[in-house]
């Protein structure tokens, strides 16, 4: 049986929230697994809702021309959760944690919706920008002389930095292959 998008979304959401204590034990897992899980859960929710009558969403469509506004908003939300203070607050305070879950899931859903409508140039810009942002955060974490999160060790911080840079390199390679193929097809 093929899993339904809604099932996947709920599975991701439940994993990310119920196992939060375990996932948030380490900075690397927090940033590279829990945050992406929440974002992906939102994206799958959006897929699940596709084709359903969503009049309000359709009405808002004009405001999200080429998906630019949506993608801008989604990447801005992700950027907020790269701030060490926000990570600390999410670990320590329930309100921040709820904000994190809701905002990242919403960002994922919005990004999925907008991605479908985005021109290839917009897509390339968004991917390039996100990769640049992730790599920068990674390098900052590697270079930081101090502990940035009060809830995580310096060692953990360094591992997270290298993991973020590694992720950037991996995703860049994949994006280059996909982009290259598209270009080859176009020619």
């Amino acid at each position, binding site marked *: 049986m093929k899993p339904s998008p809604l099932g996947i979304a709920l599975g991701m959401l439940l994993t990310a929230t119920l196992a939060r204590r375990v996932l948030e034990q380490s900075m690397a897992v927090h940033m590279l697994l829990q945050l992406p899980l929440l974002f992906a859960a939102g994206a799958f929710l959006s897929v699940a809702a596709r084709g359903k009558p969503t009049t309000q969403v359709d009405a*808002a469509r*004009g*405001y*999200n*021309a*080429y998906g*630019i*506004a*949506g993608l*801008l*908003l989604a990447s*801005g*939300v992700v*950027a*907020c*959760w790269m*701030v*060490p*203070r*926000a990570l*600390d*607050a999410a670990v320590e305070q329930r309100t921040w944690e709820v904000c994190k879950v809701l*905002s990242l899931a919403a960002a994922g859903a919005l990004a999925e919706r907008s991605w479908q409508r985005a021109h290839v140039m917009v897509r390339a810009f968004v991917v390039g920008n996100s990769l640049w942002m992730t790599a920068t955060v990674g390098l900052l974490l590697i270079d930081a002389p101090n*502990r*940035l*999160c*009060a*809830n*995580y*060790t*310096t060692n953990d911080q360094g591992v997270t930095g290298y993991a973020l840079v590694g992720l950037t390199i991996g995703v860049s390679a994949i994006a280059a292959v996909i982009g290259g193929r598209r270009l080859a097809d176009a020619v």
Partner: protein
Amino acid sequence: MPARGLIGMAFALLVVLAALDGATRGFTALTSDTARMLDVAQHPVNVAPLILIDARGQSQSLGDRQRSTIVDVIYTRCVTVCSELGGVFQQLQSSIRKRGVSDRVRLLSVSFDPSWDTPERLGRYASLMRMDTSIWTLAAPTDTIALATLLRTLGIRVIADGRNGYVHNAALHVVDATGRLAAILPVDATDEAIDVALRHSTRRANERGEHPLTPPR
């Protein structure tokens, strides 16, 4: 691009700015330590009273009746940040002596590991650090719930380092004579910490109608 599209983008930009504003405390703090420092500087907070037992087995409180107190939080087994803090406090001790302000500022090191840091072990650490007991007190709380409250007020997080020790953030906390946390300063701001502590003891003298030694800012 249609006008609606532009409105949408402007709205998205505003929301992102507002969210970043929230995450960074109005673009002033990237870390929770900085945010706590700025919060306390704006609104000093009352520290819940707690009883500490010093190396001689005598009870101590966080605020001193006469003097401002510069507080740090340590555990005596610590070999990393606490030894750095120990050095900083030795420097503070000699500065206080040199400036002749020991009647207005004192130092207090609080252990967050009371099960290990018995008065006897505190005493050993105190002599190792060459603490002058008229200036510098080392003590551990008796109540773990009160300790947790204190750590929360000070903004100190203690996490296990996986090697039977702890990792914790460090700062200089200035508590005035009324037991109010007046300021949090980075560990290298020793002179500034004494200045702030003096300012708060001066203010207290003013309130009582005494002549302050230095005019308040």
